[in-house]
């Protein structure tokens, strides 16, 4: 029963579940209190913060702000920076909805929004991003890698060129999809804000963090009791934070092995699938995450294929997951200039940490069998 939808979510790691368990029972305290139960909880989240900071190379633990997940981190980054500096947003046409909708929200508030287009491989030109920045721009947000196609964006070069041009803007990257396989580091010359989500890397759902470089101006978007130095109010999800730290540490430690193993699974999948039936790998020539395979099946409706795969026990996706369960047209493919008909024939397969070459071959066999019946 192949699960080929790790870009949507991943199964929780055993070590994560074990680490979280005590915080669902005896260590139940609210870290904001003054008693022993509170101290235990407070200690747990601060230890988690230190471990995550160390894992990503952040200079200070307090540069890690715990949030309710990737979407919330993106909202805090984009809305928070734009409000704090009362400026506009420069972003790309292929960002996750959490960034694009945050930008549109700011647009409705009167902030200047620039959406930079991408080329046919889904990649943004760093020069286009830099030239879109004006003295009214507060934040530039460019994802590390795309959630649908896996295409890796030149966030490093974008950052370098903005810095060397002396542009005083905050730089954000959504690294939710990339964190499992790419060396995401909080370096002095890297982005000021980095979004990471727990459940994409074997951690729990509903938890994530935003790396916030010390000194970066950020207006909170969730107001209340002033937790997280006022940057994110609300009682901490202590168990989630503990689980997140374990997932982050393990992911960083296993990254090289993950990239090799999962990449081999994905490559074998695409090779075997292509040898059985006609397919077009989206942005196949581009620099992509090893985990993602976005495939067009000419002449086969994605919706039909996904249902037939589901009935055969295979989980895959058409673009990003949509809350109603119906399939929406992908803004990512549209931005790449993919015709709507072709987009409607495209399916995303995404692999996870336990998948190897043999799994890739087996998955290809089943998908080819099902697709073969439809062509």
């Amino acid at each position, binding site marked *: 029963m192949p699960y080929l939808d790790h870009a949507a979510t991943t199964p929780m790691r055993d070590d994560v579940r074990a680490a979280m368990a005590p915080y669902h029972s005896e260590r139940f305290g609210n870290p904001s209190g003054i008693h022993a139960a509170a101290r235990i909880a407070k200690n747990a989240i601060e230890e988690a913060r230190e471990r995550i900071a160390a894992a990503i190379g952040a200079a200070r633990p307090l540069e890690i702000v715990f949030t309710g997940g990737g979407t919330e981190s993106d909202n805090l980054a984009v809305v928070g920076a734009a409000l704090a500096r009362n400026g506009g947003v420069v972003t790309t046409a292929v960002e996750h909805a959490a960034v694009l909708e945050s930008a549109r929200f700011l647009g409705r508030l009167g902030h200047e929004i620039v959406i930079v287009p991408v080329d046919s491989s889904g990649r943004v030109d760093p020069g286009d991003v830099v030239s879109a920045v004006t003295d009214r721009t507060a934040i530039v947000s460019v994802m590390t890698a795309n959630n649908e196609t896996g295409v890796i964006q030149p966030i490093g070069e974008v950052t370098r060129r903005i810095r060397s041009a002396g542009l005083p803007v905050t730089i954000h990257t959504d690294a939710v999809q990339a964190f499992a396989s790419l060396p995401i580091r909080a370096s002095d010359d890297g982005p000021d804000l980095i979004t990471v989500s727990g459940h994409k890397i074997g951690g729990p759902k509903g938890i994530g963090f935003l790396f916030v470089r010390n000194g970066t101006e950020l207006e909170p978007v969730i107001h209340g009791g002033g937790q997280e130095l006022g940057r994110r109010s609300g009682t901490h999800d202590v168990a989630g934070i503990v689980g997140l730290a374990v997932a982050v540490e393990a992911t960083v430690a296993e990254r090289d092995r993950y990239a090799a193993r999962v990449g081999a699974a994905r490559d074998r999948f695409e090779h075997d699938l292509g040898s059985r039936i006609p397919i077009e790998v989206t942005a196949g020539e581009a620099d992509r995450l090893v985990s993602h395979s976005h495939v067009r099946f000419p002449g086969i409706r994605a919706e039909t294929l996904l*249902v*037939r795969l589901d009935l055969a026990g295979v989980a895959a996706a058409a673009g990003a997951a949509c809350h109603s369960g*119906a399939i*929406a047209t992908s803004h990512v493919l549209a931005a790449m200039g993919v015709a709507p008909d072709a987009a409607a024939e495209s399916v995303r397969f995404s692999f996870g940490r336990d998948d190897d070459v043999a799994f890739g071959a087996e998955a290809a066999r089943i998908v080819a069998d099902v697709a073969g019946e439809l062509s």
Partner: protein
Amino acid sequence: MRALVAMSGGVDSSVAAALMIEQGYDVIGVTLKQWVGPGGAMPTAGCCTVSDAEDARRVAAQLDIPYYVLDYVDEFTAAVVEPFGAAYLAGRTPNPCIECNRKVRFTALLERTAAFDADVLVTGHHARVERDDTGWHLRTAVDGTKDQSYVLHMLGQEDLSKIRLPVGEMTKTEVRRRAAAMGLRTASKPDSQDICFVTSGDYRDFLAERFPETALPGPVVDSAGEVLGEHGGVTGFTIGQRRGLGIAVGEARYVIDIDPAERKVAVGTREELLSDGCLVGDVSFIAGSPPLQPDVTVKVRYRSTAIPATLQRAGDRWEVRFADPQPAPAPGQAAVFYDSERVLGGGTIEEVIRS
């Protein structure tokens, strides 16, 4: 054997799904997403709403069957919603559910039935599909008060060979009893009457918002052309309507004609409303060919009794002659021909015949 069940979130389709499971089918539940409310979400009022789809999803989970929401918004908008407004602008009274069945729903569902490798398509309609040595037949429901054969008249032999309507064999009371016995959450859910894409409750508000020209005022006249008053848009009227005419005269008055070009609504006495028949276009016959005998009964509106009439070809249309004069039917509605309980076919009323 695999069955694709169209689940609306109502009690009938819930029970239909359960009955197919009992019959040993592998059942797949689907809901067609046909309309989007503000912001692209599914509507929150009317049928086909978020909560209806959610009910369907929950029933599917309870029955432990796969369930999918399929996006037919573009097709539905083009084939049903736009013509809905256009029909009112042409002075007609459209039946969007029939247009949907004809142009979107069954086409889409039968196509999905094949694509999902299912053997039959199942809906919760109250009507019966039967087969004998002359072919497939569509009959009225066991529960005459819930009969929906009128909205299914456009189906043909090929369609019916794939369609099963298990709740048409049961009374509504039995359907609800079965649902309650199985603990289905939809057991006591009220029947839906609304047009699925009209979410505000009144189709006139919907039309005025989406097709502003339907809300332009015009004169209300009598049969001699004398102006009796003014109306707020022809969409507020249908042939035969008695209430809400906005005029005060002694005797009861009915809408007898709508002239969309002049935005004129003509009213008259019950006598003046009477008609001798109608011309029907877009006619199809269940058997694939017209009946041999001209004598039929006909329904010219949904919840009405079939009346005796004769059926004759008139060019590419069919002429229906009522045995006795009848209040004029509303162009845009369906005329459905019956031989006793059996549906022969039907089409769209295009013109009223007087004399």
